[in-house]
């Protein structure tokens, strides 16, 4: 995207040392190409968790860089290395009607239980001493 308007952008404060407008030129200059998301598994059977990213020219470099950054201290038994563009992000969740009953954790009855115990004067009999609730 930057490449299309490289000359104007240079004038607008881009470092003027950028040699060629072509993307290959920029890539070579920065020595990087794509962002890869790295997930690591700490022990066999455990879920993979996001570890961070590597910035690499291609998959082969990404694999080596991920190995060196997230695996060399025996902190992982396996890694997933995924090009960022392969990840679909969903970040909009409309909840116009506050349909909390659909949540897997169900209704929150903690506050209502507390009120009921207060009314009945049995607050101190609650399991584990409900005083903090």
């Amino acid at each position, binding site marked *: 995207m930057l490449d299309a308007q490289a000359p104007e952008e240079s004038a607008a404060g881009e470092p003027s040392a950028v040699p060629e407008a072509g993307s290959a030129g920029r890539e070579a200059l*920065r*020595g*990087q190409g794509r962002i890869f998301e790295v997930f690591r598994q700490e022990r066999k059977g455990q879920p993979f968790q996001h570890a961070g990213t*590597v*910035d*690499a*020219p291609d998959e*082969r*470099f990404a694999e*080596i*860089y991920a*190995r*060196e*950054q997230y695996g*060399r201290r025996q902190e992982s038994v396996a890694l997933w290395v995924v090009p960022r563009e392969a990840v679909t992000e969903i970040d909009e969740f409309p909840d116009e009607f506050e349909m909390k009953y659909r949540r897997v954790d169900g209704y929150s009855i903690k506050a209502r239980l507390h009120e009921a115990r207060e009314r009945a004067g049995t607050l101190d009999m609650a399991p584990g001493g409900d005083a903090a609730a």
Partner: protein
Amino acid sequence: MSKRTDLLLAMADDELILGWRNSEWTGIAPFLEEDVAFSSIAQNEIGHARALYELAAAELGTTADELAFDREPEEYRSAPLVELRRLEWARTIARHWLYETADQIRLHALKASDDEAIAGLAAKMDREEAYHRIHAEMWVDRLLATEEGGARLNDAVDELWPYALGVLDDELRPELRARVEERLGRKLPEVAPVPRGVHEAELQDLWNEMTVVRRSAPPGSQW
């Protein structure tokens, strides 16, 4: 000094000095990810050196630290290939690749050794060196993919070729030649190897820096 100790020290010194040279890229590599990866590889080499020194130290009745840091520069058994200071990326990659290729041939021979300790350590090192080789091969591909990169790599290989031959004993050299020629798709000149035993001038500067802390402390200091 036994032939065994001599072999262990030659390999250990190669790994220590190359690790040291490669670590000179820490903080100034072409880009950050490569900086991390190359520094990590450098550290692995120094780790290999330590394991090799320990085997030699057990035989000589000394310690790995004393072998690594308390000898005079001329006592090192490193190959001149690893001593050269070539802070230029194509040469660094050429040396890295030539060394890893030679080292693989050497380790392969040692894995078949009757000496269990040496064969075991060679196998262990080889499992880690495998990733150094992947890294080196990947860069060779990357440089060969463009005209300028290919020209620079080939020039660097030409310059370093006599040194690369010097890493190995006579009987292993033909295999190194065959592999390098096949990879580059061309014949390499018949040249006299630059053997172990003579040192490059740059080793003195490296040694001065490498041992400066060690030499600054009174003998027998505990760290």
